């Protein structure tokens, strides 16, 4: 079934979704995953949810935006939206991304060259709503019709028509959360237009002007982190307790030194983890501790709020929340006089700290910041630690987190490690800078409200899952255990959900984990294998 949508449709027919998703339309997966009917049923939206929340886009509700009470509330929302639209295009309120945004506003050639590079559009079976250009074009038409001089007629002739009403605003809000901002489309654009950036800026408009953002990213994300110290809800005592427990447990199991130093001043390395690791993947911080100790690095974690959590969801929806957290992270590094801040295995933390906030961390806040990957490479090839790669003699493939590869260009060091330590390492196609997003990008990994979790697993993660299956084509059956190396917490969250949704652990014996786990698993002198296939 094709889903032909016009841009003009966006503000029309308020009472029904613009499009419907039919699982039979989705891009096919290889057997045994080729039967749509055999996959878990999507969560039905409750009657109450349908009555309370805007459900007018694609039958999926990620955000739970309450419907307006009356016409006055509708109009007020539209007015606030227009006011935000204006601010987005001013130097005072949006200098941070003004130039890229204006260029993307004015120079799209509508050639659709970007479409097929989008994993969501591709996975959906080419549903027009998910084209990277669709959302952007709605925004573009709104700007030209409602903000630019020349009047509605000229705007219509030049840029095409669009209605602005509550339906348009609420649909656009929801549609901002159907793109993981992976920027694959931007790579494909012959003009350099960036639809991922447009998504980013629209999300900002909704958050910074209307106060609308997904609960998982705002209330339970940045706000919680700024209030308590971490988006996981852990305060400093709990983090220290948890890490102590992890240290003891893994020291005992591995027979290696897994001690974590806390709040050391003048350390060579201030390591900041995504705190989600501590809660969900404790083997990851443990592996870091083992490697850094074995390599003799002078390192530390911090118990400063919110710097024991490298998460910064501000990147996904709000410049000010981003800045607030980034400034605190840098402030801790300054206080401890750390020589550098090391990013743990977290893609968006890498991007926030290393590039996005590079131009706002001024003066004594401009502490050196580095990815853990080059340091890990140095350690692995440095000779101080002995490795036995045969311990990793199982099929391994590498998932490239968009924020580390496409956005930062850190691509080869992790591969050199894997080629050395994993005899059966194989690439996905495509990979590196052209990788596909895991489907958890831009905050999706922590968003599962209503039936959004199903959409995310069935559509946003689908192309990635297909790539994984293809990488393991030669050993597809469950008798061979296989490992997807995903050096990013959010990506791991997406893999956890995706593999569970498709039943890939049982049907194909595929597990996932980080990079440091594979490094430790290959260390000589380890008491027991570090990677535990059963527990995953």
């Amino acid at each position, binding site marked *: 079934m094709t889903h*032909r949508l016009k841009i003009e449709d966006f503000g029309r027919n308020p009472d029904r979704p613009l499009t419907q998703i039919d699982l039979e339309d989705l891009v096919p997966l290889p057997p045994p995953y080729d039967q749509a009917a055999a996959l878990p049923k999507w969560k039905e939206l409750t009657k109450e949810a349908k009555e309370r929340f805007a459900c007018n886009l694609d039958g999926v509700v990620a955000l739970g935006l309450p419907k307006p009470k009356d016409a006055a509330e509708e109009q007020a929302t539209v007015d606030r939206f227009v006011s*935000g639209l204006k*601010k987005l295009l001013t*130097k*005072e*309120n949006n*200098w941070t991304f*003004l130039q*890229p945004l*204006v*260029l993307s506003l*004015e*120079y*799209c050639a*509508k*050639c*659709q*060259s970007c*479409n*097929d590079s989008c994993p969501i559009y591709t996975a959906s079976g080419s549903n027009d709503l998910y084209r990277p250009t669709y959302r952007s074009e709605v925004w573009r038409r709104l700007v030209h019709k409602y903000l630019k001089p020349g009047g509605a007629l000229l705007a219509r002739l*030049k*840029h*095409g028509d669009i209605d602005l009403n509550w339906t348009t605003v609420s649909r656009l809000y929801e549609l901002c959360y159907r793109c993981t901002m992976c*920027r694959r489309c*931007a*790579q*494909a654009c*012959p*003009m*350099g237009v*960036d639809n991922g*950036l447009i998504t980013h800026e629209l999300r900002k408009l909704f*958050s*910074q002007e209307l*106060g609308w953002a997904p609960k998982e990213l*705002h209330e339970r994300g940045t706000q919680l982190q*700024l*209030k308590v110290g971490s988006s996981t809800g852990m305060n400093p005592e709990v983090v220290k307790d948890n890490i102590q427990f992890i240290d003891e447990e893994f020291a005992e199991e591995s027979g290696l030194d897994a001690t974590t130093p806390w709040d050391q001043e003048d350390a060579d390395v201030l390591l900041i983890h995504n705190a989600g690791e501590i809660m969900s993947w404790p083997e990851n911080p443990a592996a870091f501790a083992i490697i850094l100790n074995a390599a003799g690095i002078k390192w530390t974690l911090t118990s400063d709020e919110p710097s024991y959590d490298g998460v910064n969801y501000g990147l996904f929806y709000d410049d*000010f929340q981003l800045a*607030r957290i980034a*400034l605190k992270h840098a402030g801790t590094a300054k206080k401890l006089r750390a020589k550098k801040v090391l990013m743990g295995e977290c893609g968006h933390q890498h991007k926030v700290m290393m590039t*996005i906030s*590079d*131009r706002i961390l*001024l003066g004594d806040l*401009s502490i*050196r910041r*580095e*990815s853990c*990957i*080059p*340091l890990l490479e140095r350690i692995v090839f440095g000779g101080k630690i002995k490795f036995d790669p045969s311990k990793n003699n199982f099929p391994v493939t590498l998932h490239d987190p968009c924020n580390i*590869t496409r*956005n930062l*260009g*850190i*691509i*080869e060091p992790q591969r050199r490690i894997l080629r050395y330590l994993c005899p059966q390492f194989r690439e996905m196609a495509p990979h590196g*800078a*052209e990788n596909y997003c895991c489907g958890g990008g831009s905050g999706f990994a922590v968003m599962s409200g209503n039936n959004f979790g199903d959409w995310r697993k069935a559509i946003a993660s689908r192309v990635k899952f297909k790539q994984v299956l293809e990488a393991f084509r030669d050993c597809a059956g469950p008798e061979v255990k296989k490992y997807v190396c995903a050096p990013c917490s959010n990506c791991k969250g997406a893999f956890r959900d995706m593999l569970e949704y498709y039943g890939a652990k049982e049907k194909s014996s595929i597990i996932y984990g980080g990079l440091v786990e594979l490094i430790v698993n290959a260390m000589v002198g380890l008491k027991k294998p570090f990677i535990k296939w059963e527990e995953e």
Partner: protein
Amino acid sequence: MTLLAFCYLAVGFFAVAFVHRAWAIASMPVHLRWELAPVPHEASKAHYGGSYLEEYEWWTKPREKSLVSEGIYMFKEIVLLRGVWEHNPRMWTFSFPFHFGIYLLVAMAGCAFLAAWGLPLFGSLARMLAILGYCLGCLGTAGLLYMRLADPKLSAFTTPATCFNLLFLFLVFSTGAYSVFGLADFTGELAKLMKAFFTIDTTVALPAAARIHVVAAAAFLVYLPFTHMLHFLAKYFTYHEIRWNDEPMTAGSAMEAEVKALLSQPVEWAAPHIGADGKKNWVDVATQEVQK
């Protein structure tokens, strides 16, 4: 005289409008870093999309920046439309002839100019380029117009202006093709006009077909800066200033001074959690504590 005056007006207008638009983009404030792999000036890493951030303590290493590698990338992008070829081969079938046609015609104008100053070899070259350029241009624009109307993937985004642009271009190319095939020495006539243009020779006269073509082309030049067709200018910025701008902040730099000034601007965003009041600046807002 009227033809020449129109040419002066058109070229002058285009030059001013072009500089104006370029300035409008160039004078926008510095933005946060937003680079995108591959960054071709990373000489030894560009082929796989790598960057200097792969280096252990990158700040201690010299940056390798290769303009040659950037140049090769740009050549492929601009002349061969590599991006369109890779991601949209169907459209490339027409977009490439169309763009290449334009490039050939620009080269043709250059040759006609040289021919006007007594270099006859360039006259023959100009004629060959004109024949090829106009034919490719006609083929490309007609094909693109057809695609934009008939292909449902494109037509949802097609506006009256899209069709007008392509028809306008078709008019320019077709009147050129008509002149080059219909007149005995069209490029010679163009050479004459160019010489008159630079020597302000108001007595110059052109056959009707050539006149019509020149008027159409000059009118297009006037129209161009009002449209997104100026994308070749924008592309410079989207690539060099955004995708490939990986310049780290350095203390005491001009960029630092600019950012400091930007951070001192008042913030007006209205959502309650921002806590802006139109007076507090970016630093105030970003360092404000969240209520616990």
